């Protein structure tokens, strides 16, 4: 490989090639460059960017949903296009989990000065978003996903692909954890909650971030004993039953403690 293959110009050409591969009609590139662990190109309306440390790609068309319209084809067509995107990017079809189409809906209402409803419109279906999850040998990779919404012309209006490489060691550890679960591994009890589900898989840092942590883990969802309390506890355990660290987005120093918060003074008199 010559030094030209690693030049800035070559890198930006690769991003342009990526855009074409994804079916993006980027037009005239107005801006290009890199910042932190991201590199990208931008036209008047469209951004295409990727991470430098992970198979993570973003496409955003500013006109999408407005002038850009949204895809009128069937759900199956949208899924098929999504699968082709993954294929073009070298993702093995064996890693694609059960695809889903999420349907966005909208509604509006008018009120008077006293807040009384004057009119309430019916909900309308809006755009559809394909969500293709990832699974390895049936084990979920919870943090990986392709999210794709297409314009009226079938071009990416919004695309987020987050599909980082996983080491064979992490995958092997996930297999071990699945074996433990199948053999009756019991999660630690948590105050105020009971176990709802237990499953082995892989978690990693989310799409937008500056670091990439990857862990094999057993995901345990706990349901509150008091049924009305919401936001369910979800913990990830390693083989020793200890919680794995939350995959980071930043390499942050520990926060300085705050508090105790000063209570307001009681009014005099």
């Amino acid at each position, binding site marked *: 490989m010559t030094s030209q293959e690693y030049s800035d110009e070559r890198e930006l050409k690769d991003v342009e090639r990526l855009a074409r591969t994804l079916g993006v009609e980027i037009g005239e590139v107005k801006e290009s*460059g890199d910042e932190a662990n991201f590199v990208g190109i931008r036209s008047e309306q469209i951004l295409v960017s990727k991470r430098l440390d992970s198979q993570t790609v973003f496409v955003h068309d500013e006109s999408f949903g407005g002038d850009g319209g949204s895809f009128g084809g069937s759900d199956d067509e949208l899924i098929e296009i999504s699968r082709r995107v993954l294929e073009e990017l070298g993702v093995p079809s064996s890693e694609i989990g059960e695809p889903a189409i999420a349907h966005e809906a909208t509604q509006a*209402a008018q009120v008077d000065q006293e807040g009384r409803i004057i009119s309430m419109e019916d909900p309308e279906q809006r755009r559809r978003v394909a969500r293709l999850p990832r699974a390895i040998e049936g084990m979920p990779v919870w943090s990986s996903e392709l999210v794709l919404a297409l314009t009226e012309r079938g071009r990416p209006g919004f695309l987020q692909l987050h599909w980082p490489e996983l080491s064979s060691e992490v995958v092997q550890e996930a297999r071990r954890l699945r074996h433990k679960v199948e053999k009756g591994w019991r999660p630690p009890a*948590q105050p*105020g909650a009971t176990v709802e589900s237990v499953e082995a898989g892989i978690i990693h840092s*989310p799409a937008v971030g500056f670091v990439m942590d990857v862990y094999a883990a057993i995901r345990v969802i706990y349901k509150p004993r008091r049924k*009305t*309390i919401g*936001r369910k506890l979800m913990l990830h355990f390693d083989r020793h039953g200890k919680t794995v660290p939350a995959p980071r987005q930043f390499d942050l120093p520990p926060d300085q403690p705050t508090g105790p918060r000063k209570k307001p003074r009681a009014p005099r008199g």
Partner: protein
Amino acid sequence: MQMWDTGIGLTEEGGRVPLRYSTGCVRDYVPNGCPGPDLPATIPEGANFRAWYALGGFQLFSRWENGDVWGSDFRDAGNGDLEPNGGSDKPEIYLFAGHGTCQNPPTATSPDFIVACGNFGDPDSTTIGTQCRWGNGAGNLRFAFIDASCPMDLVSIRNQWFPVFRGLHVAVGHSGTSTQDALDSDVRGTQLAAFTSGAISWIPHLSVGDAWMAVGLNDVQSGCCAVVIAAGSDRDDAIDRRDREKVKDERSDPTPRWFAWRWVCR
């Protein structure tokens, strides 16, 4: 000294000031005698949210955790939401991460809640529709990010959220039940911040609505819906704010004559 124009932060000299953000994150419920379980992901969620907004050039107003997040911070009564050190109506942007309350299922008259576990400012539970009024009087809140359970149920949105908008621009939350719930995760709030803060030019800089539709379904159960609602002076204004308003837009506060909302379900 600062004074506020219609939605734009200006000093008396006419210089711009950065918008302010606050986080109220509650992990500890059980140790403080509240119904649990505890929610460990709320703390890194708040930390990462703040990191993104700091990188985006915003100014931290307050960052209370656990018992220092008071129920009164969210209530208009007695100016609790204008408490100088942490009221939710003091900054322009507020993230709450903690418990909510879900009905099974909710009805059109079911209330939505924010549930803290404070060492002051009781009660811990705030009924959004009757007790939250954001952007009124001296209030500044423009963007309310409520990452709890079922704080924005679709069936009751008109009763619970229309009255809340008194200057507020956009709010996000979830609609669900106790079996279609949001899970304790730091991903939603932090990725919302990543996409809305404009911190890095090569990360898509999305409107609040688009960002929540993109990230709000992370770590939620099947049937749970991510919801965004905006107010506007007319129909086009409400829809435009719901779909296109970015945190950095510096739009003026809407006159809430129209509401537009949008949702997507897992």
